[in-house]
């Protein structure tokens, strides 16, 4: 029966009464929610099958299994295990050589050494950066109308580098939220604050600047709350939180920390100040080169001017007696040191002396060229929007209903009151700044961050966090499946000095992680989502990992790290249709087509079409969906990039052996990291025969298929044969196993 409005209001009143005053924040008598009590280090429990556990982590899992009357699964096969951990730690499948070496290594710590090798790989930082970029709503354009291109990618490269260097998570936090405020802040520490400026920028005509500015602050506040507090702060923008102990005052108190930059919200400049020049090595090299060239030519000019315009040493050439007859404008252009003159002045001087003194005119022209090249170079240097506080803090107010122009009472910069440990209070108010906030977030005084961060690490490996709602640790979020394990991981993370690689190594080398993902009917029935962890993780890979895997298997993947974003193949007209032709997508050529997905240009208003179930990069996202739609299958079957990968992969199999079974094996080893079974070979060989028979009748079709993608075809391959193998390789790349981690 449908509840009437009256029934519902009675219920509502009852709820209000039960909770005291209508918001959890105002209720001080309720027992504190588990997530808001700092974790204390639990003692790993005693278990019956103690021999199974490889460390404390496993004992927590095993205790739960034993209490449920379940036993863990056996360890996964070695090939499966290597592929699983290589995907998790580097986002790529193992190469056949890596698989061979691992399978041939009989030593008892072969697996641990493989994990260490992967943790040390530069691919590790690239893989770990993806989720951080999603949380940081990183993109290469502003979003909204106009969607101007920004150059935040040096910040993205910094993330990769910080992950690879294993910058401890506390420093990782402090630098990104407040690197500019660290004593003696380095360029790198300032660059890291680009995190805060990754929000969208609205340049729509008619927008009120202050409204934009407040929107940006909302975004910074809510991103911080999601990433470090697991809190749904967006609820408290307009009213005290209905379920969690956060007030509007808490919201605007947190916002106040960010409300002190010179950003005014006006316009849509995608490099709006404060910003930081981030020249690449190539920029620096060219600058040095131009500087040297400029000095030489300027010296030549100075020598000529010394001859043409004799004068006392400290006077400019324009004040020489011999300059008197020259037109006023030319005398002005001669005022400064040659090296300091602008391109316009140099141009006028050159025009004046052309035909009169050709050596002088030539030198002036050369210098003008250098000045112009230098200006163009400066313009091409990326500028990363960063944080920088103004001297006098702005006053921050509570905004009624979150409306930018409905200011209420003044609010001090402060940490959420219910999370503050009164025994060790952080600095708050006017004297406090973002650095105080950042330090508090990763201090033992904040009860939430260590659990939230450790949970995201777990989610990375197992597909689901110990707290499934990794974005919400509040009372409406899900309770942890293994509370003691979560506390142990959180305290271990802190105890290790926020050593992220240590945390990842703990998980990757655990017996829990090493279990086979095979599921019996009974177990599936009992625990369909594998929350009890009686088996290893198995799920479809993120779409970016599927793409990187295909490129790697084909041997197409370009290895270079970092740099400006790239544009791989994308169907024509997608940007044009979304922007009425204002933005044209032109795919890159050569190696840029085969860079890792991390480096693909992300236009906010219309994201890259080759990804699915990815965060939209508009707002902070720490958990993405895993869905299955026919559109995904169409993409993986038909996209130019995947068809080309299949073609190149087929070429490699053909080059490796003349024999069908061996070729199929090459496909399997490159894509799945294992050999094909006899049955699998038979199915694919049957397909090959069919494709071959058809294409032999239609050789022009084979030619068309092989023309897909830019990369060159190896010489000497029979076209019909190569096309038939391309279809077989395409089948392998689309296998459930190929697009799943298991």
């Amino acid at each position, binding site marked *: 029966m*449908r509840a009437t409005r009256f029934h519902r209001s009675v219920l509502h009143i009852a709820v209000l009464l039960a909770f005291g005053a209508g918001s959890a924040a105002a209720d001080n008598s309720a027992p504190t929610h588990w997530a808001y009590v700092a974790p204390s280090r639990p003692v790993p429990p005693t278990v019956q099958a103690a021999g199974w556990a490889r460390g404390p982590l496993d004992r927590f899992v095993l205790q739960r299994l034993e209490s449920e009357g379940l036993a863990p699964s056996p360890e996964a096969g070695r090939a499966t295990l290597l592929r699983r951990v290589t995907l998790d730690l580097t986002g790529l499948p193992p190469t056949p050589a890596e698989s061979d070496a691992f399978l041939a290594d009989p030593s008892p710590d072969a697996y641990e050494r493989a994990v260490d090798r992967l943790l040390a790989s530069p691919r590790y930082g690239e893989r770990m950066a993806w989720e951080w970029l999603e949380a940081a709503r990183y993109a290469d354009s502003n979003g909204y*109308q106009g969607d101007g291109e920004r150059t935040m990618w040096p910040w993205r490269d910094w993330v990769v580098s910080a992950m690879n260097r294993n910058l401890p998570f506390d420093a990782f936090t402090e630098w990104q939220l407040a690197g500019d405020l660290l004593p003696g802040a380095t360029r790198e520490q300032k660059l890291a604050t680009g995190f805060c400026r990754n929000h969208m920028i*609205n340049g*729509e005509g*008619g*927008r009120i600047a202050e409204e934009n500015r407040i929107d940006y602050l909302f975004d910074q506040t809510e991103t911080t709350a999601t990433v470090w507090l697991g809190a*749904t702060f967006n*609820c408290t923008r307009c009213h005290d939180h*209905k*379920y*969690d102990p956060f007030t509007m005052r808490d919201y605007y108190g947190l916002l106040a920390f960010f409300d002190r930059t010179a950003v005014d919200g006006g316009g849509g400049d995608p490099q709006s100040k404060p910003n930081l020049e981030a020249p690449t090595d190539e920029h620096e090299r060219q600058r040095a080169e131009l500087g040297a060239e400029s000095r030489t030519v300027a010296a030549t000019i100075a020598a000529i001017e010394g001859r043409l315009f004799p004068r006392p040493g400290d006077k400019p050439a324009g004040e020489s007696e011999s300059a008197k007859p020259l037109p006023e404008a030319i005398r002005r252009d001669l005022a400064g040191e040659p090296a300091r003159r602008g391109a316009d002045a140099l141009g006028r001087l050159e025009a004046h002396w052309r035909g009169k003194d050709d050596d002088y005119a030539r030198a002036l022209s050369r210098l003008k060229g250098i000045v112009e090249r230098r200006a163009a170079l400066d313009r091409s240097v990326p500028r990363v929007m960063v944080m920088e506080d103004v001297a006098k803090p702005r006053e921050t107010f509570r905004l009624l209903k979150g409306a930018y122009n409905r200011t209420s009472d003044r609010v001090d910069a402060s940490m959420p009151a219910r999370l503050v440990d009164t025994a060790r209070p952080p600095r708050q108010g006017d004297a406090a700044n973002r650095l105080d906030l950042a330090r508090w977030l990763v201090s033992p005084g904040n009860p939430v961050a260590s659990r939230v961060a450790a949970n995201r690490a777990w989610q990375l490996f197992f597909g689901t966090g110990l707290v499934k*709602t990794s974005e919400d640790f*509040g009372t409406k979020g899900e309770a942890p499946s293994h509370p003691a394990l979560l506390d142990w991981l959180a305290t271990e993370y802190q105890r290790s000095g926020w050593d992220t690689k240590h945390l990842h190594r703990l998980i990757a080398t655990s017996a829990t992680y090493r279990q086979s*993902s*095979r*599921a019996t009917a009974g177990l599936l029935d009992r625990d369909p989502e594998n929350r009890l962890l009686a088996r290893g993780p*198995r799920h*479809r890979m993120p779409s970016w990992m599927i793409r990187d895997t295909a490129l790697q298997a084909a041997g197409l993947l370009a290895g270079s790290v970092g740099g400006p974003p790239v544009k791989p193949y994308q*169907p024509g*007209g*997608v940007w044009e*249709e*979304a922007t*009425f032709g204002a933005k044209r997508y032109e795919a890159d050529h050569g190696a840029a087509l085969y860079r890792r997905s991390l480096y693909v240009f992300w236009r906010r*208003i*219309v994201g890259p*079409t080759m990804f*699915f179930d990815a965060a939209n990069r*508009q707002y902070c996202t720490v958990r993405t*969906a895993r*869905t*299955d*739609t*026919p*559109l*995904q*299958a*169409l*993409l993986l*079957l038909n996209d130019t990039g995947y*068809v080309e990968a299949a073609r190149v992969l087929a070429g490699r199999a053909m080059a490796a052996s003349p024999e069908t079974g061996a070729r199929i094996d090459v496909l399997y080893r490159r894509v799945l990291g294992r050999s094909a079974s006899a*049955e699998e070979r038979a*199915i*694919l060989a*049957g*397909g090959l025969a*069919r*494709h071959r028979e*058809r294409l032999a009748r239609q050789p022009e*079709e084979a030619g*068309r*298929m092989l023309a*897909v993608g830019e990369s060159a075809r190896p010489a000497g391959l029979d076209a019909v044969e190569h096309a038939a193998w391309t*279809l077989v390789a395409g*089948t392998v790349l689309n*296998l*459930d*196993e190929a697009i*799943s981690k*298991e």
Partner: protein
Amino acid sequence: MDPLSEHRRLLTRRTFLGQGAMGIGSAALAGLLSRDARAAGNPAGPGWGHTHFAPRAKRVIYLFQNGAPTHVDLFDYKPELVKRHGQPVPDEYIAGRRFSTMTGKAEGKKLLAPVEPFERHGQSGAWVSRLMPHTAQIADELCFVKGLHTDAVNHAPAISLLLSGSQIPGRPTLGAWLAYGLGSEAESLPAFVAMTSVTRNTTCGQIFYDFYWGSGFLPSRFQGVKFRGSAEPVLYLDNPPGVDLASRRGQLDDLARLNELKRAECGDPEIATRIAQYEMAFRMQASVPDLTDLSREPKSVFDLYGPDARQPGTYAYNCLMARRLVERGVRCVQLMHAGWDQHRSITTELYNQCRDTDRASAALVLDLKQRGLLDDTLVVWGGEFGRTPFIQGSLEDRPNWGRDHHPYAFTVWMAGGGVRAGLSHGETDDLAMNVVRDSVHVHDLQTTILHLMGLDHERLTYRFQGRDFRLTDIHGELVKGILA
């Protein structure tokens, strides 16, 4: 051989989709095209075929006029505005009102009469501008809702509010909610389809953000699938060069057999979904060419919609496609046409907008009616807000007359599926500035559309971040007055 019938033959040859050897039933398939909308942990979604009460409409076509059409010049006739043309806007009409920064303060702005005369039409006597002659012809089929108002004063936030219930992008849109709540009746098409068009040579720059048909925090299978006005209506639909139907079929057969081996070995039920996913992709490849093949449409149809309907990417083509989509069971078609943002082109581009949209909008309603589909198809025409009754620009400069954004009143018309035809609902003041009777907030409009589809807006919820979200946020009143 006819490729389409060959395609169908290949489809029926297969047994995967039956309750056959592989045991992949329609249940697994259903999930892929949102036929079973229930999501884990979210029992609130009633699921396919389960409405909260008897629906009046089974599908919605939203003719979204992006950029905000001028209610003042098209449907909301005010003789007083004609009389006071050129006079400053009286303060009491605009006190405390906030306008776009392009207008800034509205004080002292001059009132601007509609640029074309209005006439009464049909038995209902509805006032319609001469700019909309075809719409005028079907006035008795329409319900004009003249009391619409919204909270947002800029395009993207206002469109987002109207379509998703929130000014901030990222919530599920109406079509996604309908797909989630009701599933799809289509065998091989998505439940929610979006299409876009723009008037040729328009100076406006409104962009179609994909969050306008996004699924927000709902599973992404509920998001609108963008059909493009080009050779490949759905991204990646076409097989690569050199791959024909038979070889693709063979490839998918091999793939299914190999995946089935894997399923037997590892026991993951997700693999059954995977097989179905690829099968459904094949079906979609089969059905879309049939959908976009207009060769069997009789000449009378093109006479009705106009010659543009043969031209992919035009509004008229999209209107015809909308009819073909709902005929095939698509739940929600969201058609978006940009170019209505006439800040300085009321005397120029407004005419082009009307020329490009009027005939096809009316044709769609008539076409649906002729086919007996109008009874259970709801058609909604309207933008994100209205335009100011006062001028943007200078009275002396007629070629550049314009009107600014106006969130305080605008007109939407609805037809079919359970709304009262021939009704003019609500009223603005004598200058079309503010609503004075039967005001309808955009949340109320959403409530009413859901109601017509058999859904209670307070019960169509999805739990996310610990909260049960609704399309209507915490608002929404049913507009009973427009129900048939």
